């Protein structure tokens, strides 16, 4: 029952998001065709483009056609070249996907231990040190971190390639080595933000009565955190991860441009600079949809983490 409600919710959000994207592109003042072709385009070519893109049809019709093409599985053609861009987008999404995947991994591996340590030692200098370090991490923009890592590890120490990307199909080691620095950059920045949420999630748990009960029956501090703390902090952490996904993708776009990786981010920026509106709005909608999917997965995971929700059905008998 709960999953149905969540699914319904997700679809509504997705529909509204698509309307928002469509509205932003089409409702703002100015003629789209003129925007795409740029100021010095001839009126005829602008009119021709308007005709080809069907800009004169009523708004609702254009929205329906746009969604129609999307839902039927292929992507609207580039307004400039008219060439299909489906293959491009898919390939680049994969690249960004891996970057985000490894980035998230680094972030969690950083944030969980640091956050837990900062919470358990919040009254000791070692705890303040960790929190302070996270505070600094949050303040440094992703591209600065990227540049620093490139200089140190890419150029000076030559441990990893400074930029570029190698398909996993061509060489797995090449693929991995190219992903190391970008993932660490993305992971470090997101990790620093996560540390604060992990820390406050653990501090909340440490302050509960049932944690004190666990301590009063003989569990050591870390054992009590492990047996009783993790499951309850997991609930809060999963929520935070859900909220962070959006900024994670944004971070990926920045990291891609620092490391010149041919992901969806750079592709999106290219299309923005040559003002290919249909492609831009489609990619943006896809990214938003991805974020909503992750949020859906987060909501679904509550059932697994917190057995009480799962056995609501059992309760209902």
């Amino acid at each position, binding site marked *: 029952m709960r999953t149905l409600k969540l699914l319904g919710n997700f679809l509504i959000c997705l529909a509204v998001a698509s309307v928002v994207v469509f509205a932003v592109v089409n409702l703002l003042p100015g003629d789209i065709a003129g925007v795409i072709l740029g100021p010095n385009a001839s009126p005829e070519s602008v009119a021709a483009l308007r005709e080809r893109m069907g800009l004169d049809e009523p708004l609702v019709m254009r929205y329906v056609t746009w969604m129609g093409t999307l839902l039927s599985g292929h992507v609207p053609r580039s307004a400039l070249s008219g060439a299909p861009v489906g293959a491009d987008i898919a390939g680049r999404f994969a690249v960004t996907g891996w970057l985000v995947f490894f980035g998230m991994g680094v972030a969690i591996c950083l944030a969980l231990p640091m956050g837990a340590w900062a919470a358990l030692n919040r009254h000791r200098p070692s705890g303040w040190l960790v929190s302070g370090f996270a505070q600094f991490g949050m303040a440094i923009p992703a591209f600065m971190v990227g540049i620093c890592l490139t200089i140190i590890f890419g150029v000076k120490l030559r441990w990893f390639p400074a930029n570029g990307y190698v398909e996993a199909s061509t060489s797995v080691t090449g693929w991995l080595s190219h992903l190391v620095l970008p993932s660490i950059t993305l992971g470090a920045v997101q990790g620093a933000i996560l540390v604060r949420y992990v820390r406050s999630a653990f501090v909340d748990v440490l302050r509960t009565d049932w944690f004190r*009960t666990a301590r*009063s029956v003989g569990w050591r501090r870390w054992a009590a955190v492990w047996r009783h703390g993790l499951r309850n902090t997991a609930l809060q952490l999963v929520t935070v991860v859900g909220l962070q996904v959006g900024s994670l993708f944004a971070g990926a776009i920045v990291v891609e441009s620092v490391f010149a990786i041919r992901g969806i981010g750079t592709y999106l920026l290219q299309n923005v600079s040559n003002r290919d509106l249909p492609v831009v709005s489609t990619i943006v909608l896809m990214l938003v949809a991805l974020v909503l999917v992750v949020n859906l997965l987060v909501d679904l995971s509550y059932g697994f983490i917190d057995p009480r929700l799962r056995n609501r059905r059992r309760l209902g008998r």
Partner: protein
Amino acid sequence: MMLKVDQLTVRFGRRTTPAISGIGFHIDQGERLGLIGESGSGKSVTSLAVMGLLGDTARISGSIRWKGEELVGRSDAHYSRLRGAAMGMVFQEPMTALDPTMRCGRQVAEVVRLHAGADRGQARAKVLEILATVGLADPERIADSYPDELSGGQRQRVLIAMAMVNSPQLLIADEPTTALDVTVQAKVLEELDRMLANTGAGLLFISHDLAVVARMCERIAVMYRGSIVETGRLDQVLGNPQHPYTAGLIATADITSAEPGSRLPVIQDFWRQS
């Protein structure tokens, strides 16, 4: 002497005024001591100090001897072996004292396996037995339920089961029935009384309610603003209290003796707050 507390003083963080200072009392095997005092008197800090559960910001001085062995300053590892085995503790608020994501039976079983090392089967049997002893009608169902499916009274009994399952020599109860209804409180106190008698365990009972403490303990200590102002046998202290604050506490505790609608005695009639 099972438990001997001497000159116990606790300060938190940078605060100069101690939460409790110069606390001294003793509890022998099977003895029951009541700690009576109002909010802010430091009775909960005292109980948590004995259990070694004060947070990192607490600075503790003085001595807490358990069977001759000094506990103040001992490592958390050492203290943890005592908690849930030699000493058990029950707290005031049952609604939030159990892990909401774990079944009650499993939470009790953990305590058994943590100290007694029993395997899963033995633990389950022990859990059902102790749940029955604390007066729960249907131990099987209670063990399989999550905390939020139980009433306050049932949860408090599960917590008492967790504290008593390894038959500790000392039970520390910090206002265990304050959050319960009067009828449930009467039953829980009765069951607690019976369990302590059967296991011969000592009791440190903390409460603001003099009548409840009188029902459970034969000796009481009166706490006021972080120190013990009077200690003694229950009938002596109630009969002729030495300290004016104790006299005031006894007078204000029992409003049934005053004529309904008449002016009630107030603590200022006995004790001018310094």
